[in-house]
């Protein structure tokens, strides 16, 4: 009787302590979060300012709210609106995601769980492709794509992803797939799964966090990557959001900062949305922990 009441008391105390600790952690996270978000606030606020207000006013909030930047920015140029650019970008991004997820996971499975000759050499080669600055490979690459007659199409931006050229993701998945217990793989094989079935029914589901990470990063990086798009896309009908945003800026003349910030704000929404949507799978996805028991 006595001892049990002491336990209740103790747990109450520790509950109280835990509450305080929680508040401390929360406030720390929130303050840090504000620091992280300051630029976003600034950009969104600027997107509602009059052009003359953006750089001259000291106030954080617009002195006069305006939607002009959004309407003007959305119009794009010569009748090609940002609606088109968003659509184009989405197409590229979706294709890039499919390519990266399929090709990189296949290569990663081979590197992580299969035995074959020259594996370590090929793996080193894969890492090496990441180590050369792209500025020196861009010209020869352009020549190759030009010979294939791929300039001004999405092929140079999309097709390479189906051949696992992004070693970053291969390496990422290798690290995750290596973490899948070998006993599990062997068990599947004893159950009659071939390597292909193992890949499909065991490896892929178990590496969902890595696959989702790949999806998020591919989405964001492809969405933001403008250099490749700049070189390979010149027809405005094929323009992407990143190119559309660059269109507002001309260091030798007058830049349309208001519309640029407005469209940048809009372009962050899909990125943010994708992150929120997919992180569910990232955090609450299937864990190997449960399967191991």
């Amino acid at each position, binding site marked *: 009787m006595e001892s049990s009441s002491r336990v209740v008391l103790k747990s109450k105390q520790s509950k109280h302590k835990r509450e305080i600790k929680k508040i401390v952690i929360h406030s720390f996270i929130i303050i840090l979060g504000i620091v992280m978000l300051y630029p976003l606030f600034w950009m969104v606020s600027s997107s509602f300012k009059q052009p003359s207000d953006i*750089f001259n006013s000291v106030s954080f909030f617009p002195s006069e709210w305006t939607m002009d930047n959004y309407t003007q920015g959305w119009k794009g140029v010569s009748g090609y609106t940002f609606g088109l650019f968003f659509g184009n970008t989405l197409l590229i991004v979706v294709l890039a995601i499919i390519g990266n997820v399929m090709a990189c996971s296949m290569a990663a499975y081979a590197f992580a769980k299969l035995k074959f000759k020259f594996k370590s050499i090929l793996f080193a080669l894969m890492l090496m492709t990441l180590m050369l600055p792209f500025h020196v490979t861009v010209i020869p690459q*352009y020549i190759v794509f030009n010979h294939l007659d791929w300039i001004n199409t999405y092929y140079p931006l999309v097709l390479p992803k189906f051949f696992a050229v992004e070693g970053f993701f291969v390496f990422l998945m290798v690290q995750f797939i290596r973490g899948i217990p070998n006993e599990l793989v062997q068990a599947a094989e004893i159950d009659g799964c071939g390597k292909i079935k193992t890949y499909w029914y065991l490896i892929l589901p178990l590496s969902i966090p890595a696959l989702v990470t790949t999806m998020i990063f591919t989405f964001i990086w492809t969405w933001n990557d403008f*250099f490749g798009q700049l*070189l390979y896309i010149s027809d405005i009908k094929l323009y992407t959001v990143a190119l559309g945003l660059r269109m*507002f800026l*001309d260091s030798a003349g007058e*830049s349309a900062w208001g519309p640029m910030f407005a469209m940048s704000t809009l372009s962050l929404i899909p990125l943010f949305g994708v992150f929120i949507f997919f992180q569910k799978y990232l955090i609450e996805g299937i864990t190997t922990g449960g399967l191991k028991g």
Partner: protein
Amino acid sequence: MKKSLWLFIMITFTFLLLLGCSSNNEEADKGESDDDSTKSGEQIEISFSWWGDTGRHEKYNEIIDLFEEAYPNIKVDRQFGGWEDYWDRLTTQVSGGNAPDVVSMHQFYVSDYARRGALHVLNDKVENGELDLSDFPEAALDSGKVGEDIVMVAKGITMPGFVYNTAVFDDLGIDYPESDWTWDDFVDKAYEIKEAMGGDGWAVEDGSGGQLQPLFRYFARQSGQDLFTEDGKLGFDEQVLTDWWTMWDQMRQDGVIPDAATSNEYEGLPLEANMFATKKVALLGLPANQMYLYEEQMAEGEINIVRHPHIEGGPNGEYIEGAYLSITEDSPHKDAAAKFIEFFVSNDEAIKIFKTEQGPPAGTKASNLVLEELTLPEQRAVEYIQTTVELAEPAAYAPEGVNQVETLFSDNAEAIAFGQKSVEQAVADFLNEARSILEQ
């Protein structure tokens, strides 16, 4: 449950993939049918590429639409972007063997392109009238020459000068600068401005480094020298450079111009936020065609312009600057490209759209045509350009390696500004290395 969701995602994606590929194929097919009609000799496509802001994109697209109406058999593929993007892409396209037929050109880069054989020499086309530039004054035509070769045609010309805002000067209670001033007057005026401003700002941005032209080039030309000689050697001596850097260094030490860190902070900022627009400095070196931008930006006052200061008794520094059009050497449709350039710089309707987009048109008739349709600040700019252009004398284009020399110039000027090198040291270092670059 999770697995089926996964499968669903994969299937959707695969479906989208097929969809995407098929729509891409359709586009490719369309492209091919265009090619077919080229073979039949009727329809050709040329590409034209330029840099600029959205306003310029609208204008140029309109001009191209007009051209396509006038020449229904020529279709113009349009490629555009901001300044940095433009040059990154053009470099890649030219070296990748896929250069646009007509490209926009600029003094800053023309040597690099022309001297490496990337630009088509237009002398024949101009002489036999295929590219009719009879409206162009000699000087404007010459400004598109590298050596004896015409490699580019001015779409608009401009002249730089120092601009000031009348309201700012009135507030400070200072007389406006005179158009016919010397560098000594300039320095005196700078001290006067600084005194009136107190701690709120400076007289003028640091002009010691950055790009070789226009400021330093004017100074060198007024000293009877130039940046480079005709045969591509360094064109100025120790004395000129020492005088130049000493003048600015003195002003910097006296706080008349901003210190090095402040200058650096403002470098590369957009027009709206730069020192002149935010009234941190009262004078600004600027090409006249951009004056109206500041008049739009600054609520009060008129933006006026005066000539660059000169050296007492020395020759004029003026030479023509502008924005140009070139035909690339690899272009398969040089005749159509020439037609396009001619249309762009001389068709009345096109000129009326162009107005003074990149400076007033180079042609005499053409520039008179636009004069009536301009706003007041634009008119002031055109008047200034028309008077100073008379003073312009030919200026040799830089040799290969100019970009390296330029970096060297700005590096050393910066080293003086940050107090890392003395003027003597910087001059010696610069001359040494510049000469060895140009020897190669």
